[in-house]
């Protein structure tokens, strides 16, 4: 099925990216890779501040995610 093929190809491509990125981190000084990583992670938290959720809504959301994670475990 074409859709299944695309999913496989996407996974293969993502794993190749992880390998290539890890290789780049290994050959790059800590100060440089960690500076770039910090830009990415810090922007993620900046965006999270704008999330219009109460802590109760957040807890309900992660509890639901936890339930689906358990059912997807092999």
């Amino acid at each position, binding site marked *: 099925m074409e859709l299944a093929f695309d999913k496989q190809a996407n996974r293969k491509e*993502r*794993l190749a990216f*992880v*390998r290539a990125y890890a290789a780049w*981190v290994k050959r790059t*000084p800590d100060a440089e890779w960690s500076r770039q*990583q910090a830009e990415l992670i810090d922007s993620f*938290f900046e965006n999270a501040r704008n999330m219009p959720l109460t802590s109760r809504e*957040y807890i309900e959301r992660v509890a639901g995610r936890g339930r689906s994670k358990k059912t997807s475990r092999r």
Partner: protein
Amino acid sequence: MDIRYSKDTITFSEKHLTRLDMFVLGFIRVLEPCTPYVIVSGYVAILFGRSRGTEDVDILVPRLEKEAFGDLHATLSAQGYEFLNAEGADGLYDMLMNRMGIRIARTDQFIPNIELKFLKDDVDQRVFADRVGVNLSDATVYISPIEIQIAYKLYLGSEKDIEDALYLFEIFKNDLDQQNLKAWMKKFGVRGDEYGIGI
């Protein structure tokens, strides 16, 4: 990457701290006088450079007596942390005793947060007993052994978890205890060859 790796210590030369690192270091500064701990799961890969965000950091601690947990609750509250679950100290303790996680964030924020759990089984006990100190800035954070993390992430099996496992393997493949990794993969009933985790 200029890290020095040994069985129980990993040292960075000059890591730029992310806001997530600073959040973790701040929390640990309050937690550690109350109880030893070990950090597990996604943050372990992120600490070593994985290019993704996370909402939460999973921390395991040995089972505390109710009074000791009450002290930890009071200390964290006084230091500007908030428990996101609706329960008070007694209810939170009951959750922990029922093998559930409780979530803790800086007051008026919920991302990032800590998901705190008591050690619950022999795997958790081993992760805690063999925890690895990572020297970061002027502090040490304790994380799960990398071999157990790789096997456990493969066991969890989501795309994100498999990518975390592969990332850790690629970063540490020359330093890992291959026999130990093999034993943990066997214990979790997982194989890594289809993802390039070849041992």
